[in-house]
């Protein structure tokens, strides 16, 4: 793995799915962010959560070509983390004023969108955990790892691909029920 990246190389690395760029970004920025969070009522777990969240948001923006940076990535990440953390403190009501006017990095729209995504993720997490095995693995194998129905059939020991397919639909219907019921 490479030991150093410039900002431009990080962005390129993320775009090309290069292994290492994202990890470098995280390791390089964690300590500054952790320092801020330790000094503001947080612990290591909080620092980890916030820093990961920010790096993932950054990653998604780069992937979706939705980011125009006019500062260094370090500055950007720090500002995102600061905002995420202040918001979390606000919801834990340790911080009295809503962090609305701190900086102009995000539009209200963007903020709402990020919040929706976050809720969506939590809901899916809950549904997937409730789904149990083998449903969880079948769905992941089919939709994420793009295994064919025959491969899944072999892996889970179904007698034929049709049975596996039936099972997959049952799982999907259950997931759908759970996902839309926790709303």
């Amino acid at each position, binding site marked *: 793995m490479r030991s150093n990246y410039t900002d431009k190389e990080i962005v390129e690395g993320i775009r090309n799915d290069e292994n290492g760029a994202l990890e470098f970004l995280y390791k390089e920025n964690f300590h500054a962010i952790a320092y801020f969070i330790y000094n503001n009522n947080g612990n290591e777990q909080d620092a980890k959560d916030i820093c*990961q969240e920010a790096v*993932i948001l950054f*990653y998604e923006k780069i992937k979706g070509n939705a980011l125009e940076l006019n500062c260094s990535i370090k500055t950007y990440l720090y500002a995102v983390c600061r905002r995420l953390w202040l918001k979390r403190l606000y919801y834990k009501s340790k911080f009295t004023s809503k962090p609305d006017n701190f900086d102009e990095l995000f539009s209200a729209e963007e903020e709402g969108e990020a919040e929706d995504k976050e809720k969506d*993720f939590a809901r899916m997490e809950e549904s997937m955990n409730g789904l149990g095995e083998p449903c969880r693995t079948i769905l992941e194998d089919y939709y994420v790892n793009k295994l064919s129905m025959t491969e899944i059939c072999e892996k889970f020991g179904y007698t034929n691909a049709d049975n596996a397919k*039936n099972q997959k639909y049952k799982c999907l219907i259950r*997931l*759908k029920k759970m*996902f839309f019921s926790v709303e």
Partner: protein
Amino acid sequence: MENNKELLELIESYFSGAMDAAEKKEFEHRRVSDIVFANEVASFEKLLRSFDRHSKRKTLKNRLEVAHAEMKEDVDSTSLRATKIRSMFSGPKIWAAAASIALVISMGTYTLMNYVSPLNHKDKAYYRELSLDIEKVKSSQKKIMKEINQGKPAVKQASFGGTAIAISADGYILTSYHVVKDVESVYIENKKFSRLKLKKIYTDPVLDLVIMKVEDDSFKTFGPLPFTFRKTDLDLGEKVFTLGYPKQDVVFGEGYISSVNGYEGDTASYQIAVPVNPGQSGGPLFDAQGNLIGIVSGKHTEYEGSAFAVKANYLKKTILSNDSLNTNIKLPKVNYLRNQGKIQMIKNLQDYVFEVKGYN
């Protein structure tokens, strides 16, 4: 009215692009004219999008967890040296010289100590004592097994018992060498996977470890293991816990590292203050984050409450330095338990801890 499954099939083939032009046209027409259908399509689309995003995020999170662990390890190993070097620059020159001498001396003793201990390992007198100790544990274990077995219908009694832990999804199992030393066939058992037959793959009498593999036709996989091997050494006083089978149900025991070296200064094991009983040999020892840190091997016959566990680090080194083991055993890489409470952690771990039964 179409049932759910057919509807899903139809929608799915639309989104995957598997429809021909006519089907597509009909589908789109229906989507405009039939509001119930349109809603169904929209919710399905949302579900798939959320699902996709969720799994992508999960992968990213796992990558960052690994990065975080790597980073922590780097910090742990360099922090000692870093503080010493910093103090060298901050003080006057004479202190710098003194500090550098101290640094050289302390590094010297450190490597020397590490170096001498493995030599002790080959000391015969030391060996005998250790094996004697194990013999004692074993004979009491045999006696207890015998007592338990008396008065039960004689099916075929296990002549040996112990505990084992899964170390890879595809069926590699780890336990103490002395548990399976004198037996011909070995089975493991727990609630989730019931009964599985094992064959020995690799034995290490010195570390008192054996690696086995499940060879049962019914067995496919354990699924992804939720724990990893801890990479750094443990400190005195760190909280640890064991899971084992001194009886037919799994038993939890908690304590701390009471000495960083084991029996008679053995650097390959820890001394732990955890109550252990015959039958727990080969059982896993975990730290508070759910990392595997050792394998319980025996206890001291004279001193109360001190048991020994082989360090997982040594085991990992053995695996990595042996080519055939290294290519075959895919050790788990990600610890999914890190953020869980104790109860939840134990629940997740006990599926991978087994009762060992040996038959002559």
